[in-house]
């Protein structure tokens, strides 16, 4: 098939074969996108109505409080503007990216799209988004939390806005720490070192019934692994990829520091049996463990269970200072959007203090703007979750690799962590993952990014 055939009689055969191939492809695509396209059929009808300008918005269907809040905000936007209609479609979270990919292939993306932060770079590379630099006012941009700007910036442009960001750290049970005579850190600056964390765990295990005193939320799996445990590698001085040019993972992912960090985690799970498998998701609230490595979403439940004994502490420092995760759902405008002004108006509306605060209350995340943070009792200076804001604005929070290769990197890391968790040789696992990442980047010719004439 590669060498041009010199035999004239072969060409019709080849043509037929490629036709067949195309037919097959078309059919497969038809099957895959049938569901998506059927939900978008009404869009042509809407655009025919010249009196009303409509905007199609896709969001993820998170928890119920989140869904209700977003829907009420959309309603409020519709009521406040005449001749404008925002239509919100909520898609299930689990297969969100596949649904976006399918819609993109079918040319059926909405005008405004919500997506999980680290997928941004892949979407930009695929040409699905437009830059927001000239669409969003300077005032809105300046009020954004630094981590959200970092997450939303790629190739020198801002592509997304986030109403909230996530916080990742340790929750600890003060009473249990005191009983084990552990030092209690006061904030981001004086967190436990990995070594000290080991002795804290040992102390806790000595007075615990089954010795399992740490919850790593191993029951979550999936994206959680990358979000929660790649900061350990970064804290040690390694990374998932070399961020100077995003061309290679070798030397960063399999460097001794990274191996060391992952070995700590493996030892806590395998050798020392400190980690509760947490199949019922109740390890911390039921008092089985003293420390839980988890995100902001558990704050309310944990606070209810522990009251004043609940402590918020930074993740252990594996050598270069504590590092933590960041990133959550973001809003962007797609390249299919025919009314970018209106779309930008809608995003600006969502980023106003009132909406941001409502949403932060609905999902307990860190508000996405500095002005909203000052108004949030939990997050403002002196609030119980202030440490999250510090981490997100002072550089402890590291965005997941800002590369179109991210979907592949995270898939590989999830597999790698699964293997490490089950006792595989850390060095071998990280090394072969690094080779696979490099292979993928090479297969995609380094993910060359060129913006077309838009």
């Amino acid at each position, binding site marked *: 098939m590669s060498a041009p055939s010199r035999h004239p009689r072969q060409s019709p055969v080849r043509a037929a074969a490629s036709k067949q191939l195309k037919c097959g492809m078309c059919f*497969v695509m038809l099957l895959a996108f049938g569901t998506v396209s059927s939900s978008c059929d009404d869009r042509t009808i809407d655009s025919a109505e010249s009196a009303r300008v409509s905007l199609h918005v896709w969001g993820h269907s998170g928890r119920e409080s989140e869904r209700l809040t977003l829907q009420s905000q959309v309603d409020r936007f519709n009521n406040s503007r005449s001749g404008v209609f925002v239509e919100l479609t909520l898609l299930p979270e689990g297969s969100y990216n596949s649904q976006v990919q399918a819609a993109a292939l079918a040319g059926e993306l909405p005008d405004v799209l919500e997506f999980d932060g680290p997928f941004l770079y892949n979407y930009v590379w695929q040409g699905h988004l437009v830059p927001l630099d000239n669409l969003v006012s300077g005032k809105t941009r300046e009020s954004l939390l630094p981590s959200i700007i970092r997450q939303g910036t790629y190739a020198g442009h801002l592509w997304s806005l986030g109403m909230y960001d996530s916080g990742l750290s340790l929750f600890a049970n003060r009473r249990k720490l005191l009983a084990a005579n552990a030092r209690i850190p006061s904030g981001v600056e004086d967190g436990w070192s990995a070594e000290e964390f080991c002795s804290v765990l040992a102390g806790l295990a000595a007075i615990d019934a089954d010795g399992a005193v740490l919850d790593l939320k191993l029951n979550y799996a999936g994206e959680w692994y990358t979000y929660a445990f790649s900061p350990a590698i970064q804290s040690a001085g390694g990374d998932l990829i070399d961020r100077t040019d995003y061309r290679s993972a070798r030397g960063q992912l399999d460097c001794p520091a990274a191996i060391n960090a992952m070995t700590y985690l493996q030892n806590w799970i395998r050798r020392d049996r400190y980690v509760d*498998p947490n199949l019922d998701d109740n390890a911390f609230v039921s008092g089985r463990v003293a420390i839980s490595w988890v995100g902001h979403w558990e704050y309310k439940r944990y606070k209810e269970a522990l009251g004043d004994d609940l402590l918020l502490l930074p993740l252990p420092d594996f050598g270069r200072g504590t590092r933590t995760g960041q990133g959550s759902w973001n809003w962007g405008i797609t390249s299919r959007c025919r009314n970018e002004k209106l779309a930008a108006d809608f995003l600006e509306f969502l980023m106003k203090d009132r909406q941001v605060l409502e949403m932060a209350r609905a999902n307990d995340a860190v508000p996405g703007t500095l002005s909203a943070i000052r108004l949030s009792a939990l997050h403002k200076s002196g609030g119980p979750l202030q440490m999250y804001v510090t981490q997100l604005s002072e550089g402890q929070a590291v965005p997941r690799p800002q590369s179109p290769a991210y979907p592949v990197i995270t898939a590989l890391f999830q597999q790698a962590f699964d293997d490490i968790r089950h006792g595989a040789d850390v060095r071998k696992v990280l090394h072969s993952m690094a080779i696979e990442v490099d292979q993928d980047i090479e297969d995609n010719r380094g993910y060359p990014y060129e913006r077309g004439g838009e």
Partner: protein
Amino acid sequence: MREVASDQMNDTRSWRNSERCMGILMAGPAMVGILVFVAIPFLAAIGLSFSDLRIGSPLPTRFVGLQQYERVLSDPSFVRALANNTVFAVVVVPVQTTLALAMAVALNRRLAGIAIFRTAFFMPVVFPMALVAVVWQLIYAPGPNGPLNAVVSFCTFDAVAPIDFLHDPIFALPAIILLSVWQGVGFQMVVLLAGLQEIPQVLYESAEMDQAGSWARFLHITLPQLRNPLIFTALVTTILAFRLFDQVQILTRGGPIAATTTIMYEAVQTVFRRQQVGQACAITVLFFLIVLVITYIQRTLIRPEREVEQ
């Protein structure tokens, strides 16, 4: 006379023609289905396996020759997947067939309420695998309170410490095998039961007159008479064994440390997680060839007896 004869001939011909037309018409929907859902996608997969097509990539797709095949065959996870599939087939096919035969023989009798037993044993086949997997996830729960662990420790007087079956590199594959046999055995049982009821009763009666014991009757009448159904079930089970996917996806995601990964699982991972459509196509083409070879070998080694005496 001649007119009548030719009329008759015309009649038969048109009747034959219409029969043929009807045949084609009847087979049509199924044939179209096979063409559209099996043949064309498979031909497309063969074509795509020589390309580097990736989901969503804006880069042009290139022809890469046999590179995808080279990669797949040198990938340790593929080799491991093939080994796991082989172990699974080697254990499941004989165990499941023997068990199904034993159940079929036990249930092949006139007894009040026998239909209830047959239904009970057939029930797991009707359950969707996703449901079966979730139920067995509970059975395999780690810790002393997991049902299977509780049974094991009761039977061994607490000598065996609780096992985390699905997260243990040694026990994960056996755990998958156990639930697969439980789920699949009913299907073979029904096929063999049908085969048993085809065996003419006179054979047993004459054997009884020759004073053959029940074991001898089973060995010299039941087994030879069941030859074809047995070959059929073994063949189908082998093919299903290589298709192993659902329970792995739900229970172990191929882990721990590739202990339960399978060819199908690797193919799905390659396309939906690593976005490599071309490479996944290469895996499925290899998968097809493997199943083809195994089926061919089985067919030549044990040829079903055809009834030619008519």
